[in-house]
């Protein structure tokens, strides 16, 4: 079964607005990562947040993690047309040994100029 599920599946906003995407997962994790995928391209790592962290920032990105609710959110502030892409969360499995990243189903973000 899928470890991570993003919500919403698709999101369209005007350029300059903030975009928020959510990710829920099922099992305990060591860390949670967010990736971006532009159409026809590979995934690009955006940010990693560890299980003992609650919030992390990187440029216009803000990630939160609530391990009690097994959920994370990715906020992109002051969105730009170039932010149009699919965004995936990925979780590893705690004490799995060889860490295996499991990806969610993705949120398709469209920024309207």
């Amino acid at each position: 079964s899928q470890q991570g599920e993003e919500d919403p599946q698709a999101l369209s906003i005007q350029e300059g607005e903030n975009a928020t995407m959510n990710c829920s997962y099922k099992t305990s994790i060591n860390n949670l990562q967010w990736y971006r995928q532009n159409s026809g391209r590979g995934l690009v790592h955006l940010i990693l947040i560890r299980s003992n962290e609650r919030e992390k920032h990187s440029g216009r990105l803000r990630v939160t993690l609530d391990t009690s609710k097994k959920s994370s959110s990715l906020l992109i502030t002051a969105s730009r047309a170039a932010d149009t892409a699919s965004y995936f969360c990925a979780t590893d499995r705690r004490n799995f040994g060889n860490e295996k990243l499991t990806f969610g189903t993705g949120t398709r973000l469209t920024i309207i100029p």
Partner: protein
Amino acid sequence: DTAVSQTPKYLVTQMGNDKSIKCEQNLGHDTMYWYKQDSKKFLKIMFSYNNKELIINETVPNRFSPKSPDKAHLNLHINSLELGDSAVYFCASSWDRHGEKLFFGSGTQLSVL
């Protein structure tokens, strides 16, 4: 220089054929992966190698055989291709088996006719 490069980018073939996808990374990473992304954008791990040693082998048909001649290369050979194998296959690498921050290739779109 492309960090993770995979070839070919597109592969169109008939059912029953055997094909290979090559992957090379020049990042000096120890761990490499193959992921399969289906038409719904769901990304699932297939294999993982650490220093040429297989460490993760998901429930993948025996028709799929990865080969790692050295830690910079991880090739994927697929025998007796089936319609259901049509997907985008991504190679990725990370510094170590903990999988914190994966670097992805640009993908190989496989179409089985």
